[in-house]
């Protein structure tokens, strides 16, 4: 039926088409205006909707922090575990229940500062989990202390004159440890991020996506990024997509004129922990 002559207006509604995948009764969520975490959640939900894996096979594990709250907003089986330990929890879950699609979504402080050792060893073992690491360059929830991802010279509550340490170059670290899938996107690159998440679900082994995300209220307030739009400007001006980038040069400085390199950097097939484990089980005579 034709609607010709109708005045088109925005329609006021109370539910979104993806509400069946979020705990809508807890919305609006706790994140600040302009925080990138809601967009990370949106991309994850879109990736799930577009993936061929049934919703009841997806599991989310988060640690502590603003990012850690994601586990409480997905309408999936989800676990909010101790600080720094979601990767350890996820490894156990995947080993016991290999039929599940296990995804860790947690913060930079949680996963590579407090929980850095689990990160390193899970990649070395090549356990088949997805890690979506939200890097806002800071310990957000506890009051904006610097951590291992804070760029050299960036300010924070514990580095008011500038961070005196260079940060982790996470794609290089994960690639060096043998991860079969390594990507980095920002929350501005929503479709690319959701595509990368979909790819990560298909990977047999450890899949890392580093997600650069605005924290205008925390990190941003110390570093002239006080509003979401300041981050959008930063991303538009500095991001370069290069899937075959030299990862030695992929560290993030946030200095003007120095690029933030994005892409699906590593996509390769590697034997996973579960292959090694099968071999051992066979030798031990535990498998018929």
């Amino acid at each position, binding site marked *: 039926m034709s609607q010709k002559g109708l005045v088109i207006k*925005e329609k*006021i509604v109370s539910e979104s088409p993806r509400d069946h995948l979020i705990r809508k009764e807890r919305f609006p969520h706790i994140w*600040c205006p302009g925080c990138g975490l*809601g967009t990370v959640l949106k991309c994850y939900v879109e990736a799930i909707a577009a993936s061929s894996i049934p919703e009841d096979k997806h599991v989310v594990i988060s640690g502590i922090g603003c990012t850690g709250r994601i586990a409480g907003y997905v309408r999936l089986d989800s676990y909010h575990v101790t600080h720094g330990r979601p990767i350890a929890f996820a490894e156990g879950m995947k080993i016991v229940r290999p039929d599940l699609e296990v995804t860790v979504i947690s913060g930079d402080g949680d996963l590579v500062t407090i929980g850095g050792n689990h990160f390193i060893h899970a990649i070395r073992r090549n356990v088949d989990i997805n890690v979506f690491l939200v890097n806002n360059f800071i310990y957000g929830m506890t009051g904006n202390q610097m951590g291992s991802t804070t760029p050299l010279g960036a300010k924070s509550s514990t580095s008011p004159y500038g961070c005196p340490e260079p940060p982790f170059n996470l794609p290089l670290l994960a690639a060096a440890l043998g991860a079969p899938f390594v990507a980095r996107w920002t929350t501005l690159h*929503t479709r690319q991020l959701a595509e990368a998440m979909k790819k990560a679900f298909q990977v047999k082994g450890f899949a890392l996506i580093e997600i650069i995300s605005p924290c205008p209220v925390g990190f941003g307030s110390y570093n002239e990024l006080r509003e979401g*739009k300041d981050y959008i400007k930063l991303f538009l001006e500095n991001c370069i997509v290069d899937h075959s980038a030299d990862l030695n040069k992929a560290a993030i400085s946030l200095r003007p004129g120095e690029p933030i390199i994005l892409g699906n950097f590593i996509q390769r097939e590697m034997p996973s922990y579960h292959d090694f484990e099968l071999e051992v089980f066979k030798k031990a005579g535990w498998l018929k």
Partner: protein
Amino acid sequence: MSLKIIREPINKYIQKIPLGLIHVIPERCKECGYCIDLCPKDVLTVSEERNIKGYRWPKIADGKASECIACRMCEWICPEFAIFVVEADRREYE
């Protein structure tokens, strides 16, 4: 031969430009401005009204009613699941 003739697409008469119908959930909006700033067609602006938390949600700007091309940039970037777009056939409306 003029350039204009060369550049006319051969499927001009069957090609359709999508029309987006914008849907908003006012109580979820936190007025971050992402949807407004990132819309490639400048379709959106802030409403005059405020929600219970004091934020002004997005509405269609004057004269932009049929400009939305349903690219869904606003929907993807919105951290609050507060805006989404349903695609319609432009020819049905114009």
